[in-house]
């Protein structure tokens, strides 16, 4: 089985530069994809998708294209809509990046460079770094998406994927307009209603039955844990911000004081500055290791649930086709047509079941490995910072 999906490792950088992401695929250089850069323009963000491959399908061995978030979504949706992929867990779509807040600040920073005092400028820069850190969530998701697709034996061969990687013009994919969004909304409602009906059908296969119950419960709990973890990370960030303010107040006190305590104050304010940096780091790391992990698995478990749904749906279709066939045989009308339908359904179902089983097992292995890695790293980082 190919590629256990190791989460990307993040290196930290102090400036607005990005974190270099190393993707570690066991199948080595057959296909390696990552996001090597991001550019924030007035109202959109452009990511540079960088590919390294030894596969013959590509014209070059190493190349890069520029993509926007909508194009990622387009790719994801094309997978979902592809019937052939019904039996696979589609890697979850990366959530829309929230660059607005940081863009605003960046603008202010650029404009105010002349007018602000040096301290205010540095303070703003520090706050901005925090925002850049937050954005690593976006990078994390984008990368995970790409890596999962690249590692998946079937999906990596998808034509759309190759186009996505190689075609260096704009894919002219527009975001969904209102009508389409409304359609999507209704589709989702229908799907969830259907899902309820379909889930009533008891599965013959114990493995799948067990998986279904497990997934439903797990999904809910991951959702809960993810929200709480987010809150916790935000609180940490608030504390770090407070340290920042305290540090600057102490600094002001120190510069204004005439007694010999002023040196003392200045030292303490430095200390608070350092502490703030570290606390901010703690919160960012927690965010990364814990919150992002949980968020990601929230989505993955949703995707797994979707898979199960599709399988159940096809099972129901199969059973319906069986019934239709029986009816047709009884009436001796359109038997051939019914038979073909039934065959198709049967094949579909079996195909899905087969791949689904493997996918779910993979999912578990991946999950365990990812949690292990992240929890270990979380603990190590917390230790490092505490020291």
């Amino acid at each position, binding site marked *: 089985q190919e590629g256990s999906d190791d989460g990307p490792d993040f290196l930290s950088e102090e400036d607005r530069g990005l974190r270099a992401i190393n993707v570690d695929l066991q199948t080595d250089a057959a296909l390696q994809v990552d996001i090597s850069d991001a550019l924030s323009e007035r109202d959109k963000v452009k990511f540079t998708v960088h590919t390294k491959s030894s596969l013959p399908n590509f014209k070059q061995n190493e190349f890069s294209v520029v993509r926007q978030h909508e194009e990622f979504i387009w790719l994801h949706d094309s997978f979902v809509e592809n019937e052939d992929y019904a039996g696979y867990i589609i890697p979850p779509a990366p959530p829309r990046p929230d660059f607005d807040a940081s863009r605003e600040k960046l603008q202010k920073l650029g404009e105010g460079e002349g007018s602000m005092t040096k301290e205010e400028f540095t303070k703003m820069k520090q706050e901005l770094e925090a925002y850049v850190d937050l954005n690593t969530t976006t990078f994390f998701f984008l990368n995970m998406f790409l890596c999962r697709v690249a590692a998946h034996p079937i999906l990596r061969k998808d034509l759309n994927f190759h186009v996505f990687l190689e075609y260096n013009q704009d894919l002219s994919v527009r975001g969904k307009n209102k009508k389409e969004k409304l359609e999507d909304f209704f589709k989702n409602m229908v799907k969830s209603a259907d899902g309820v009906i379909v889930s009533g059908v008891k599965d013959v296969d114990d493995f799948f039955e067990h998986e279904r119950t497990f997934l439903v419960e797990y999904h809910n709990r991951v959702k809960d844990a993810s929200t709480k973890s987010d809150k916790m990370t935000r609180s940490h960030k608030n504390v770090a911000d407070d340290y920042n*303010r305290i540090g600057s107040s102490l600094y002001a006190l120190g510069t204004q004081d005439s007694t010999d305590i002023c040196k003392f104050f200045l030292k303490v304010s430095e200390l608070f500055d350092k502490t703030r940096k570290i606390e901010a780091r703690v919160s960012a790391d927690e965010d990364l290791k814990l919150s992002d992990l949980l968020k990601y698995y929230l989505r993955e478990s949703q995707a797994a649930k979707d898979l199960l749904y599709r399988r159940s749906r096809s099972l129901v279709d199969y059973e319906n086709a069986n019934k239709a066939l029986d009816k047709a045989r009884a009436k001796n009308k359109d038997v051939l047509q019914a038979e073909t339908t039934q065959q198709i359904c049967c094949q579909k179902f079996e195909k899905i079941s087969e791949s689904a089983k493997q996918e779910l097992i993979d999912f578990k292995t991946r999950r365990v490995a990812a949690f292990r890695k992240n929890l270990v790293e979380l603990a*190590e980082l917390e230790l490092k910072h505490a020291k």
Partner: protein
Amino acid sequence: QSSPSSPEPASLPAEDLSTNSSGPKPAEIMLDDDREDLFAEATEEVSLDSPERDPILSPEPASAITPVTPTTLVAPRMESKSVTAPVIFDRSREEIEEEANGDLFDIEINVSDPEKVGDGMNAYMAYRVTTKTSLSMFHKNEFSVKRRFSDFLGLHSKLATKYMHMGYIVPPAPEKSIVGMTKVKVGKEDSSSTEFVEKRRAALERYLQRTVKHPTLLQDPDLRQFLESSELPRAVNTQALSGAGILRMVNKAADAVNKMTIKMNESDAWFEEKQQQFENLDQQLRKLHASVEALVCHRKELSANTAAFAKSAAMLGNSEDHTALSRALSQLAEVEEKIDQLHQEQAFADFYVFSEVLSDYIRLIAAVKGVFDHRMKCWQKWQDAQVTLQKKREAEAKLQLANKPDKLQQAKDEIKEWETKVQQGEKDFEQISKTIRKEVGRFEAQRVKDFKTVIIEYLESLVQTQQQLIKYWEAFLPEAKAIA
């Protein structure tokens, strides 16, 4: 002219707002104490109305750091009001003395055991005030009494009345809180009312400790009575809605108006500088205090969120069917729970060690500003006396021209009277200026010490928290690694 004799504790009514009150008992008490440092710190107290003051005020800042020999100076006026021997120093020497000696008094005060007395809306909290001392002005070496909050307020009001107009910085008492007290009275046994009581107890302790550190205030008989005597007359005039309370509010308003109208010619740059400094300090401290309060709030939030997350992680661990991962997640939940406790404790430290002291100092600075205002009022009085004197002189000149001998005599008498008043005003003004200089010096030294101690203590608490964090995460790490 009548001035009261040295105030007997029981007989001094709480609303004695007259400026005739004076300082501590005759100086013989000072002799008994082995507090040489006290003498080095030149406490000066002058009864404003004592006519014999002139011979006592030695000529302007000159000479000797003569150790006080109160007997010689006090003797001629034994029968009159209590005055301690003033000792005049060179200003620079004063400052050196301040820094070198600090306030070294052997007296330790604790406020403890808050106890609810009574029921319903008449209930109140009684606090035990324990004093340990080797000072011989107290009857025993160790003693304790029960006091309630209004007793503290009463003490402060007495001290403020007696000393602030002379330029002494009297530490302010903790603030009233109707909401907080009502909750306690009603008997809600929840954490917010226990927190409130603890906050108040700590504030009262700090208040007393600060007050006894002041060498002049320590001498005060009211303070002694407060610490020692088992029964204390109830200070009813501290209630906000009493007659005295309303009088206080009116006075405050009048003062505020006056402040705006008095335009003082500041001849002494030192005062101008210091006032500016205190303004700045006030602003800075307020900002810092706000930040620290925000920190306390956020840390409490962090603690709550961590607890919620811990529960959530435990649930996740339960539903996870991979045993090792499940166990690791449960461990994570436990770790986070311990961390949440840690955060809570740190929040307490944030608050009591840091934030409360900051708010104390903000109120202290208000007291300092008040003292500066008194000086301004004193100056105004002096100026007014001069103006009146001028008018009287003009009137006398007119009378001389008009040649009315009987009225003339009266006019001359009045002139004499006002000349004395002018002299008095000038001396008062100089006196208060001197006292303020000393007080400010003492305040600054104290402030530096306090802040250092507070910050060090606070940083130590932060370090401790981190060390605990280390322990917890180190315990967790092998569990995480053990996930197969």
